[in-house]
């Protein structure tokens, strides 16, 4: 029983990290239908920035916030300089451009910070608490809390503010939104800023959890995030969140029981292919009723449930 609980909590924690990364990817895809693979580069960049700033100034909060801000700016720049000029090209063009950028970012990180990777001088959020027979680290709790806060905030923003409404409008009908006076470019800037900031937060937290940032840390999460957004219905925020959590859980149990047949990283894709064969549109592109029921079964409350049942469309 305690093994089951342990695995579940591990799965949820990993799922929270995946959710933070995948949401940014889903946002970009929903808005522009581009597979933004360079997103993983921003994830790694965020991890490095957070670590370097924390080591230099001694304050983890500063490191986290600055990293998110800086990476948000980088994300916007990436959109402005790289994606905007090629929006009217066939989809494989931004895809390969994105891959090129991802490679370049990885290599820059390796050249600037070294092959070996870096660690925190003083690991932040050290320590753990005992919950029954499990020990949960403060850092792990922080990840889950952060994911809930950020994603809940996003949901509130999307549904309760005017800018959020403009954003949702742009996602569903860009030309209509433009003719209603919404500045497409500003909405897209915002989109990239938020998504990239979330990726940076995920990068910093992964750096804290492992006490290690390496140049190639973006590779594996990027592939999994792609599988997650497919599972979640390509552009559906709530679906992406649930898919991320589910994947975390499936991986946790699968890694323990299926390791003789399948690599842990392949589990994400095996799951995705199975789902696609049965439901080609992804798990969550159906009516809200299904996701509402799912939310109840998972007993999610508050902002998370709201995100699931209120979808931006």
């Amino acid at each position, binding site marked *: 029983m305690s093994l089951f609980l342990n695995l579940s909590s*591990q799965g949820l924690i990993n799922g929270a990290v995946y959710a933070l990364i995948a949401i940014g990817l889903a946002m970009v895809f929903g808005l522009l239908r581009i597979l933004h693979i360079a997103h993983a580069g921003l994830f790694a960049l965020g991890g490095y920035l957070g670590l370097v700033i924390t080591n230099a100034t001694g304050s983890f909060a500063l490191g986290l916030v600055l990293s998110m801000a800086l990476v948000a700016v980088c994300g916007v720049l990436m959109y402005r300089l790289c994606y905007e000029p090629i929006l009217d090209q066939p989809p494989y063009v931004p895809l390969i451009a994105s891959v090129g950028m991802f490679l370049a970012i990885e290599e820059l990180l390796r050249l600037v910070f070294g092959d*070996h990777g870096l660690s925190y001088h003083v690991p932040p959020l050290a320590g753990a608490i005992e919950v029954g027979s499990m020990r949960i680290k403060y850092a792990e709790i922080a990840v889950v809390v952060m994911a809930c806060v950020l994603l809940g905030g996003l949901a509130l923003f999307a549904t309760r503010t005017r800018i959020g409404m403009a954003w949702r409008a742009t996602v569903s009908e860009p030309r209509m939104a433009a003719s209603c006076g919404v500045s497409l470019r500003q909405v897209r800037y915002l989109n990239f800023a938020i998504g990239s900031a979330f990726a940076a937060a995920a990068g910093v937290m992964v750096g804290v959890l492992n006490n290690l940032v390496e140049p190639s840390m973006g590779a594996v999460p990027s592939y999994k995030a792609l599988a997650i957004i497919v599972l979640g219905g390509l552009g559906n925020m709530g679906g992406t969140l649930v898919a991320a959590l589910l994947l975390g859980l499936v991986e946790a149990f699968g890694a323990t029981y299926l*390791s003789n047949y399948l690599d842990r990283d392949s589990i994400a894709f095996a799951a995705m292919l199975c789902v696609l064969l049965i439901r080609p549109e992804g798990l969550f592109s159906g009516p809200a009723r299904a996701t509402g029921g799912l939310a109840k079964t998972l007993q999610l409350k508050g902002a998370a449930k709201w995100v699931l049942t209120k979808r931006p469309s």
Partner: protein
Amino acid sequence: MSPRSTPRFVRLAAGLLCGLALVGGALAQTTTKIGFQAGLTGPAAADGNAGLAAAKLAVEQINGAGGLNGKKLELVVYDDQGKPEQAVPIANRMVGDGVRAVVSAGFSGPSRAAAPVFQKAKIPYIASIAFAPEITRTGNYMFRVTSVGEVQGRAAAKLVGEVLRKKRTVLLTIKTDFGKTLAAGFKEAAPKFGVQLLKEYEYAPSDRQFGPLIASIKADNPEVIYATGFYFTAGPLVAQLRSAGITADVVGAESLSSQQYIDIAGQAAEGTVITNVIDWGSQLPEIADFLKAYEKATNSKAEAAATSTHAAVTTLAAAIRKARSDEPEKIRAALETTEVMTAIGRISFNKLHEVKKSFPLSIVRNGKWERFGVIDDAALLAPPEQ
């Protein structure tokens, strides 16, 4: 033209040609070229660059002492990017460059791909960190100064059973050829030392989060965990182990020998014991001087890849000195019978050109690697003969 006297210009030309040949020959022989293959970019970059720094140190040392047989050593460096398909063209290039022997600080994949090229060209090839068994089996020009995985695993079994005197062990194997051969060696020797294998878990090289694994290990309640892997997997792993409240001893292999492992795992690394190639705290000049010089040159402490590569170059130098020539065939013959003191200790080769050496043990104390002992059982540590 009279048949007896050759025309003047012919004699002049012949003289010129001979002169040129002599000069050209002399020029061609002022340095002994040693090829150096490593992954300087790509996944093998950390080990490759460490190995390169160590090799350069060795060459400097040797040239500073007057070179070999009157000639200076020259390192001809090529990057295989950690990829087998890059290794073949650069191997061909090295052959074309006229190298007399090659030291490889590359991973198993690229080294394994390059080996047949050098065997065909009859150029001695010394691998310092690649442990794929096929390398030495490729032919008689292949040598290896690092122990194959099975031998390291057996040493670890003795470490657990006799030195630490513990029994209940869990294996955490990294899913690479390295991890699997270590595990195989450990399992083979475990019964001899009364070590009881509870369970074996495998994980992928890209894993950094070991939650599910650790949950299972906690349920097994072992005394020792034999964690194969590299600093970037074992570091997070050990930190997470201790966070979860697991107090079992952690035993590892030389792949954990870098300072980085301690930096990542922090306090959790204290007490980790590994079978190493570096004898920290040794007073022998070959070892102590290298460790000091490496730290001075690179601003970081030496680890296994660098030390083994340094040993490869010094062994090669000893063989060249012994052969009193830099003909590849003579170097090969000399290597077979060379026994030399290097930065990894006293080494020699067996029939299959696998290295025979003892295993210094290291332990983490106060945030540093320190000497813990040595495992010196020649029969147990005998490398494979075929």
